[in-house]
């Protein structure tokens, strides 16, 4: 007997939660306990009194599973609101990566040239290395990192996605 798993489409969820101890463990635990995917998860508090946090989760699954993920998140006591940004329509996604490249000579020059094309900023440099800061959607960051692999990439740190719906309305 073989065990099969379902695949599905990618969804970006914005989840507003009480900024309380253990909430992140509760959310990530829900995903692991019920076998849902997390491709990316970011969290930070967003209100002046530090009472609310916004969690942006990138997940994937068939439509019924996405619906179930939203319902499961929504029933957690500290969760105020769950919005499926993918379902809702146009939205902006951004993440930041810090990319360290080491090397000298032609590769170093090529790295700098490519960084310019991608509008990545140099935030630290030595005679044999750069750290680039790149902001964009995940595809752009992926492509930049792939190119840097050819130019002496030694280390990458990424934030994961934050996302927000286009237009004047709030969630």
């Amino acid at each position: 007997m073989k065990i099969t798993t379902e695949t599905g489409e990618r969804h970006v969820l914005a989840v507003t939660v009480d900024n309380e101890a253990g909430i992140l463990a509760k959310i990530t635990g829900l995903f692991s306990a019920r076998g849902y995917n997390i491709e990316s998860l970011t969290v930070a508090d967003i209100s002046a009194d530090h009472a609310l946090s916004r969690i942006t989760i990138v997940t994937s699954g068939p439509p019924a599973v996405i619906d179930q993920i939203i319902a499961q998140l929504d029933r957690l006591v500290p969760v105020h609101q769950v919005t499926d940004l993918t379902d809702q329509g146009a939205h902006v996604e951004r993440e930041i990566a810090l990319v360290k490249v080491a090397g000298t000579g032609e590769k170093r020059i090529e790295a700098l040239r490519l960084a310019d094309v991608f509008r990545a900023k140099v935030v630290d440099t030595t005679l044999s290395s750069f750290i680039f800061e790149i902001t964009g959607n995940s595809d752009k960051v992926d492509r930049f990192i792939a190119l840097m692999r050819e130019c002496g990439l030694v280390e990458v740190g990424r934030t994961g996605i934050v996302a927000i719906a286009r237009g004047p309305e709030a969630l």
Partner: protein
Amino acid sequence: MKEMSGADMVVQALVDLGVDTVFGYPGGAVLPIYDALFNHPSIKHVLVRHEQAATHAAEGYARSTGKPGVVLVTSGPGATNAVTGITDALLDSIPMVVLTGQVPTTLIGTDAFQECDTVGITRHCTKHNYLVMDPDRLGAVIHEAFYIATHGRPGPVVIDIPKNVQVATGSYSVPEKIEHQSYRPQVEPDAGAIAQAIDMIAAAERPIFYTGGGVINAGPDASAALRQLVSLTGAPITSTLMGLGAFPSDDPKWLGMLGMHGTYESNMAMNRADLIIAVGARFDDRVTGRLDAFAPEAKKIHIDIDRSSINKIVPVDIAVVGDAGRALDALIAAWADKGHKARDLGEWWRRIDGWRATRCLDFPEKKDAGAEIMPQRAVKALFDATRGRDPIITTEVGQHQMWAAQHFGFAAPNRWLTSGGLGTMGYGFPAAVGAQIAHPNRLVVCIAGEASLQMNIQEMGTVSQYRLPVKIFILNNEWMGMVRQWQELTYESRYSNSYSDSLPDFVKLAAAYGWTGLRIDTLGELEDGIRQMIETPGPVIVDCRVAKLANCFPMIPSGAAHTDMILQPSDVTGKMDDEAKALV
């Protein structure tokens, strides 16, 4: 606003919340609360013999009264021992508040004596949990915890209280309005969904009500509304294990329980129905059988207070999110408003009567006085002997539980206490303790298997201490019968570790605890033995010896459809393919 110690605050909050009973076990990290409870005039503390039993007793108390059960245990092992009962309450939606002691805040995270990460461990087996670090927050947290445990879909809430928070002082006041700042479960059903639903019900040719524990949780009025709606529509009704009692079992519209060990008529009716009205039930795998063959011809209306239950397993046509009682009331009102009349369901009932004619719950037995007792007969005899006494029945988990569900009839809710979702062996006896504490003058009987009972048999001491007249009726077949039954079905009767070896002499055990012990060996002794059990004051344990190798039928084997029921032992082949073997 009053200044008091955290421990006093706990007790004051419990008093203000109307709590009369706490099930618990003391230990180092809850000593301040135990001291505050010492000789308390209104809160009765029931000292159990193991923390797991405290949680099941609280469940029994909650399920039989509709009020939340309250548990008090110490840190570390006290909390971890409570985890099974907390999870049981989560799966069966039982309102419960568990207060756990914790090491002082200054020692948290140092692997201190009897320290465990209680909020971490219980995060996913509670509806919500708290670690209270500030005594000024403690009162509000306790009030909020009771709100969460009892509102929306009920469930267990853990409050972890470090010892120094119990000793330190803070201000306490009763909140003006007790609620959570953002948790607002939807209780009132959507009017549009109700209107659509009632039209579908009125138009259906082969409707069936499929109801569950949500109706019990919604209170006795919900059960009354269910009876009214069923009577208005003339439709048949079946129920899950957790929903038994919401509809009277002697009503002709009652088809019996559905699912794996449900009746042939209820499963066939689910399979052939053109409309299923699910009320407070969650399409559990025990109920649906093979999903791609589940109710292929039926449209589905699903009433549930938990939106995540809807479309989780079976896609439905109309979702009604809300309290089962409110939704049933709304359906009844809509039925009248729209002037619906019950359709002639005669053809549907004729088909159901045909399925009923298989008499699927019949079992072969010898009738002479010296014959061995069939376990089904023992349950029926207990049912007959307790008619008119309005007993509360609890069960452990296994064959005896299914036989009780099949052969014991219930006329009203809150009389049937069993572990459905988690299937916890060891639930039934402590649940009976909790029910008996709540109803000191009622007849409370735990129908047990000899194996399950031993999982919390230490509670015999609790029963003796509080002079509770709990009756334990053991269907003793010397096997973990359901395990053995599955081994017969699936593993060609290789009985790996399913024999109950080295059983105690239950009659002598009764004597050791100051109980009455009885043994019933033959059919001729059955009625008298049961009568003696009922009439003997105080706790009684009955070791009822039943046919050792009887199995529980009908049965939908794992991975099979409702229409593929095993009705009798001769249908058993003893082998299954890997796909079926992999299912629970």
